Every structure is written in structure tokens, then in C-alpha cells.
């Protein structure tokens, strides 16, 4: 069994997760209908805010990652993620879709909450997997998801995530 034998990845606290939030890294109402449209618009946002320069390369990496299996993890949440040569630092972008996105999620339900995580290749001991794990863990909490659907700014996003249940 892989899971029993695997090394435990370092955990992250809810507070440590909050360090990745930034007012520029929140899209309150992402207008997109499909998964690719959503990912494209999130990458474009990162380029516009100067977190990325070569959006096409990152977009390709994210689309390739989706070929492994959908990052729509169910219950209205998606966590598109990838490492890329052209990513300078671990970056988290949160986007909310009021209407919902046809994301090909594992439960086939529309996605409303999207957390895009980008990382460089050369940070194998970094926070990439812990951040990924923490976001999945926190958004399993229905109260957190409900709160995130109502937040107005990044401070409220932080408050909602901080109050999420941890294992």
C-alpha cells in the first residue's frame, strides 16, 4: 500500500496558509464557463498583476496537469496546480465563481471555489505539497466553503480559512 509506506509530508497550520493570501491574489467573481476558460483567466490575472511573465508556458503546464486527472476535488472546490520552470515563487490565487463552472470535477458538480497553486521546480523541500494538502483539508469543512462563498475581501477569506477544522 502506497499510503501506508509513504513518507509523511510536512504539515502546515491554518495560520501558515494565510501567509500566501494577498489582496491582488483574490478574484471575487470569476466569469468563466469551463475549466480551461477558468484556468486561462486565472493565469491572465497573475500576468496582469505581474506575478507571472510567461503565462502561456504556465497555462500549458496547468492544462497538462489536468491530463493526469481533474483537480476538481468535489463539493464545488477545485485546486488547479503545477510546477513550472517560469514560476519564481510559490503562489496561491483564490477565485470564486458565483455562477459555478463546468469543471469536470470528480463529483460532476459545478465548481465555485478555485485555488490555483503555482511553484517552481527547484523547491522540492518547500511548502508546495503542504499548501496543497492544507487547502484540500480546510475546504473539506462545509462551514469554510459556505463562508468562502460569501466573503467580500481577502481579509474575510483569511478569516474563513483560519477557522477551518484541521485534522
Amino acid at each position: 500500500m502506497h499510503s501506508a509506506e509513504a513518507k509523511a509530508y510536512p504539515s502546515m497550520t491554518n495560520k501558515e496558509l494565510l501567509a500566501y493570501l494577498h489582496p491582488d491574489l483574490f478574484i471575487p467573481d470569476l466569469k468563466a464557463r469551463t475549466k480551461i476558460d477558468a484556468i486561462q483567466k486565472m493565469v491572465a490575472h497573475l500576468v496582469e498583476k505581474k506575478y507571472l511573465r510567461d503565462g502561456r508556458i504556465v497555462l500549458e503546464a496547468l492544462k497538462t496537469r489536468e491530463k493526469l486527472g481533474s483537480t476538481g476535488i468535489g463539493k464545488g472546490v477545485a485546486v488547479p496546480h503545477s510546477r513550472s520552470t517560469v514560476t519564481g515563487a510559490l503562489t496561491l490565487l483564490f477565485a470564486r465563481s458565483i455562477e459555478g463552472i463546468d469543471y469536470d470535477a470528480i463529483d460532476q458538480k459545478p465548481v465555485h471555489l478555485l485555488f490555483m497553486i503555482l511553484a517552481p521546480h527547484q523547491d522540492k523541500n518547500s511548502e508546495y505539497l503542504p499548501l496543497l494538502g492544507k487547502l484540500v483539508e480546510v475546504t473539506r469543512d462545509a462551514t469554510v466553503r459556505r463562508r468562502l462563498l460569501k466573503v467580500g475581501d481577502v481579509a474575510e477569506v483569511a478569516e474563513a480559512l483560519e477557522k477551518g477544522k484541521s485534522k
Partner: protein
Amino acid sequence: MNAQLEALIMLQDIDLMIQEMTDQDTASQMSRIGFDVNAVDNLREAREELIRKVDADLFVVYQRLMQRYPRAIVPVRNQVCLACFVKQPTKDLPTDQTVRTCQRCNRFLYYI
């Protein structure tokens, strides 16, 4: 950016993704987090498609570099290769015309 350099970077991203997802520890961690990462063959197909966009000569060099180093394409800042830390000649400033390589380690350079 030079189209060939862009294709090489995309190829490196796929190759490193395949490496990561075929690493048992990482694949196990991804599964435990809740992501299905079993369809690595789909990445290999995407890789084959991308290889068709890369010049044959550059691909040979890329493969050789990937056998020697963890990454074949490395960043350059202020004319310094951030892999071997050797300063590049100022005549080698980036243009869209050519794919630059480091004067010392010969890796492809990506200007940041």
C-alpha cells in the same frame, strides 16, 4: 520569447512532471491529499506531441543536458546563470532570434 525556447521549457515542465508523478513518495502524497495521478501515460502522449515542435538538433542537446543535470533550462538574472553562477558575456543579451546557452555549463538559458 523565442518559440523554440518556449517549446523546450514546456518540454522540461512535462518531463519534470512525469519524474515527479512517477516518484513513489510524491505520487503517494498526492493520492493521500486526494488527487488521482495515475494517468501518467497521458503526460507521455503530451510529451510526444510537444517533441514534434522542437528542432531535432535542440532536442538532442536537451536530452543530453537532462541526462547530466536535473534541469536543462535554467534562469539567468543580471547576466548570471543561476545554475553555475557564471556571468554571461554582454553580447549574449536575449533576443527572439536564438536560443542561448550558458558559456560554462552549456544549459539553455531563460532570462528573468
